[in-house]
């Protein structure tokens, strides 16, 4: 006789329904709690027990969880938005106007979707930083790192395709400038650009293409990769375990049941962030400008904020170098990181070691100082094409400054590493921090310091404000 057969069937209809949906309530004993994790579909993404050290909030900052929560918000609000939207100009724009003025809570749903999408980029990047700084990309977690980088690219793609859908001036010109960057890829760029746009410029076909990418192709891929990502966490033995610099992990470590020690903080964190997102969406409306006018470009015409670092690079380098070679090299290095940064002894130690912590601060500081100086020099003092007039511009305003920059970074970080007797992994850390800080600096300059004609201005002296 099976154990279930011995249980009596509740006499009332309500109790029978309750028994099916929640068979025994939430168990309070260790064994029952572990059993419940195994038996429940959603909880099953977790192991039955977790190492209690990995629960420390200031180790993970809940960034992966926040990314997952934002994805859930995005899917829910996105599905609602679809019901009030026609992917065709000019209806697309009129639908957004209608949504924000006539539809009950239309603005709220749109704002939630908009801000969650933008925050997801920030959360995913911070998650990547957290994992890198604690060595979470190192063996055996190489594959999960690569899945994460792939998802970051998809998140950028989702944001970019979604940016066009309101069909206002902001959307139209940001996507025009953003997709034009693609056309600088040698050989296939023009073709790829036209395929994506469905014509020679952003138009009705582009809107439909982006809509399809935004509401089905990208989200489906993201959800599949997310499931794979979660599954790999378990296959790789859970999260990396936090350690102090130089600490050896004991052979036996305390582990606690997932219910309630992991599930409870997760739920609390999710509810808190849900509340934050609602307040944010209520207080700050998503931007909406006038309807797109393909005949007149605004001045300045800027890409979406997350691509402003790239557009800033484009102002300093020949497009093949600035839009293709540098981002390509950076992405490849990021993707293949777990194959050349492999020291497993320091996994779980923030910034590898005490020395690593100092080096990270020094490196970030140097980059904060040098990157703006380089931007200013290149803007006002250096004129490669004038100085080397007989050379092709992709060499004079491309390979020449790139070589100088790479050599500079190599010498500078090598010098820091030598002075501090840093190990290889600490040197990789120094270079990573330096380049990431530079990307942040370029993005901030692009967003706040570029005005009409893409000239440099102080943000508080920006013309037209």
């Amino acid at each position, binding site marked *: 006789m099976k154990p279930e057969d011995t249980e009596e069937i509740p006499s009332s209809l309500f109790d029978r329904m309750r028994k099916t949906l929640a068979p025994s309530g939430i168990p309070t004993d260790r064994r029952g709690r572990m059993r419940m994790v195994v038996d429940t579909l959603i909880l099953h993404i977790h192991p039955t027990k977790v190492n209690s050290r990995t629960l420390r909030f200031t180790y993970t900052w809940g960034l992966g969880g926040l990314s997952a929560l934002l994805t859930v918000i995005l899917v829910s609000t996105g599905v609602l938005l679809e019901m009030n939207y026609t992917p065709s100009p000019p209806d697309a724009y009129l639908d957004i106007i209608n949504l924000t003025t006539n539809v009950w809570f239309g603005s709220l749903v749109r704002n939630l979707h908009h801000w969650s999408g933008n925050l997801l980029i920030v959360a995913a990047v911070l998650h990547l930083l957290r994992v890198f700084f604690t060595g979470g990309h190192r063996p055996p977690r190489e594959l999960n790192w690569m899945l994460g980088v792939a998802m970051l690219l998809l998140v950028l793609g989702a944001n970019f395709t979604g940016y066009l859908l309101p069909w206002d001036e902001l959307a139209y010109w940001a996507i025009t*400038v953003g997709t034009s960057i693609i056309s600088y890829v040698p050989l296939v760029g023009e073709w790829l650009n036209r395929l994506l*746009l469905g014509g*020679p410029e952003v138009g009705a076909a582009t809107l439909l293409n982006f809509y399809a990418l935004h509401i089905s192709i990208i989200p489906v891929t993201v959800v599949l990769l997310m499931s794979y990502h979660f599954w790999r966490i378990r296959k790789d033995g859970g999260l990396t375990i936090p350690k102090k610099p130089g600490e050896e992990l004991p052979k036996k470590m305390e582990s606690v049941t997932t219910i309630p020690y992991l599930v409870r903080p997760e739920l609390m964190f999710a509810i808190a962030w849900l509340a934050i997102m609602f307040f944010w969406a209520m207080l700050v409306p998503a931007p909406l400008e006038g309807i797109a006018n393909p005949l007149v*470009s605004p001045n300045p015409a800027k890409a979406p904020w997350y691509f402003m670092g790239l557009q800033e690079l484009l102002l300093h380098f020949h497009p093949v170098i600035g839009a293709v070679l540098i981002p390509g090299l950076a992405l490849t290095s990021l993707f293949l990181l777990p194959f050349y940064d492999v020291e497993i002894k320091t996994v779980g130690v923030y910034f590898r070691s005490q020395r690593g912590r100092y080096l990270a601060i020094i490196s970030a500081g140097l980059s904060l100082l040098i990157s703006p100086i380089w931007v200013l020099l290149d803007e006002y003092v250096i004129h490669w094409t004038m100085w080397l007039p007989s050379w092709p511009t992709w060499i004079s305003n491309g390979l020449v400054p790139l070589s100088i920059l790479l050599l500079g970074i190599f010498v500078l970080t090598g010098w820091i590493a030598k002075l501090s007797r840093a190990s290889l992994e600490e040197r990789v850390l120094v270079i990573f921090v330096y380049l990431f800080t530079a990307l942040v600096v370029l993005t901030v300059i692009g967003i706040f310091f570029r005005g*009409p004609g893409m000239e440099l201005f102080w943000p508080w002296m920006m013309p037209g404000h």
Partner: protein
Amino acid sequence: MVLIMSENEKKKKINRNNFLKIAWGAVAGLVALEIGGVTLAYMQPRLGDGEFGGMIEAGEVDTFPPGSVTQITEGRFYLSRLKDGGFLALYQRCTHLGCSVPWDQVQEKFICPCHNSQFTTVGDVINPPAPRALDLFPILIEDGIIKIDTSNPISRQNYDITQIVYA
């Protein structure tokens, strides 16, 4: 002797196996290529007549005086009639990052608002960052009517006289 025979047979057998593996692999590869090709062909730009991306009628030849630049808004191009009476259809899209370039009648040049690229009446670059001259559309003149095919902008490095179309 027997040993050598069996070795040969083994080799032969492996070859046959290999052949099948390669054949199946090739078939699978072919299927993948076909699916990829079908998808790409399906996604090719789709265009219609009378709107941008199709055939646009600009008007009669005589309505455009020599030495003038006329914006044809529905076709997103400028019809530039040179002093010798020849025509060029210049796509208004800046070759730098795709902004729409307005014609400045006073300075007699195209000046892009985004990054200050400047172009002459034939579309040549006067001022970078634009990397090449404005794109052209093919011009067809039938019975004194100028028609422009806007489906496929022709990219070019510089202006040269072979690009001019005469009535």
